[in-house]
């Protein structure tokens, strides 16, 4: 895959945001459940995949996985097969969702990319945890509230950032988000 200078730099700044959200804990949003906090650290990955294509998505997924592996304090995420390997895929799925729908409606395509990205993150990571034998399928059901929270946050953030950046009118009434970028 050939990378242009623009792809390289956009991937780099989004990776920086992902790392920043992780180390400052701003990327974690408290959700009442046993499995911990919902995280929006994956959002830069989905945005990168939407704006610059799947190669940038894979690279961002790798960096997201790496930072989650290095910063992990729980046994299962200190396993590269759980924290890094599944994350390589979460840059591809939102891109596919986006190109499938973008001809019909940009906003829906952004939202779908955020939704599919977040859900594939949950599904692939949980699958890796089960396959590696840390917990069983029934034990992993506790992540459902967290998965819903993460999907909601991802959709809202992906739509807001991509629409503002590409200057797509959201038409939400009193305050237009697209006016922030001017």
């Amino acid at each position: 895959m050939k990378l242009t200078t623009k792809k390289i730099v956009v991937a780099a700044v989004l990776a920086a945001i992902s790392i920043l959200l992780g180390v400052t804990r701003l990327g974690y949003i408290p959700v009442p459940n046993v499995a911990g906090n919902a995280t929006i650290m994956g959002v830069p990955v989905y945005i990168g995949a939407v704006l610059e294509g799947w190669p940038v998505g894979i690279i961002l997924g790798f960096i997201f996985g790496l930072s989650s592996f290095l910063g992990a304090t729980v046994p299962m995420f200190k396993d590269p097969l759980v924290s890094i390997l599944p994350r390589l895929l979460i840059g591809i799925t939102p891109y596919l969702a986006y190109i499938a729908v973008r001809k019909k409606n940009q906003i829906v395509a952004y939202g779908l990319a955020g939704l599919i990205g977040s859900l594939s993150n949950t599904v692939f990571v949980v699958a890796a945890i089960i396959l590696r034998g840390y917990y069983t399928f029934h034990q992993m059901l506790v992540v459902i509230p967290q998965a819903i929270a993460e999907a909601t946050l991802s959709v809202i953030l992906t739509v807001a950032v991509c629409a503002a950046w590409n200057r797509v009118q959201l038409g939400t009434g009193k305050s237009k988000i697209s006016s922030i970028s001017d």
Partner: protein
Amino acid sequence: MTDDFELLRYITIGQYLPGNSIIHRIDPAVKLFSAIILILTIAFLSNYVANGFALAVVLGLVALSGVPIGYSLSGLRPAVWFIMALLLLELLFSPVRGTVLWHYAFLHVSTYSLRLTTTSLLRLVDFILLISVFTLTTRTNDVTRAMERISSPLQYLKVPTRELALIMTIALRFVPTFALEMERIMKAQASRGGGLTQASKWNIVAQARARLPLVLPLFLIALRRAEDLVIAMESRGYVPNQERTAYRQYRLVRRDWVAVAVAVGVCVGLVLV
């Protein structure tokens, strides 16, 4: 209150402990390669003897590098209770295999679940120590160059390894810059009476909306900076996918080869135990 606005102090990336130990002097690429094969090997160990041996090796490395062990493990402190809860869950609710050692109602501790819990705890400690030995004895620039050198065989599979290393370098360079931008945004929102609203924990949409005024400008500022950087790089003649030279050249000496041999030997030994 002002603490809420100081983001830079959370950033521990690129922390380096100067020293002159043998671990400091080994070539960064050799260190990274050894760390990766050790981590992958330890990830697959499942019996007590091999895990004990692995812990001994890792503790030996910590001693050699002169990294204070308490400092390496300090990252665990805030998560101790969470880790205990997870381990307890693993101990009591794993499928019953082997001999049942203790049971009460639907709770079972079997030899299998005990082994699973012990190995995942040991693995966590091993990984944290290994990673901190590597990152605390290697400068950030050397880490990214090491990643580039190790992954260079992947170029034959058309993986853009040089570009990946450049992405890592730019990303690490921008983290403190964006932390400052984020502080500015938080102060700007707070001075307007906005900022981190106290939305109910259960109201996920309100939680998300509360983050929007902070995170959205950050993304847009970052993307705008990216555009500037593209122009700056291209006007200085940067062309992607080209061979590049570096100011600092690395040459492997005897101790580097010895280190690789020892690391491979330890991994083979761990698998055979």
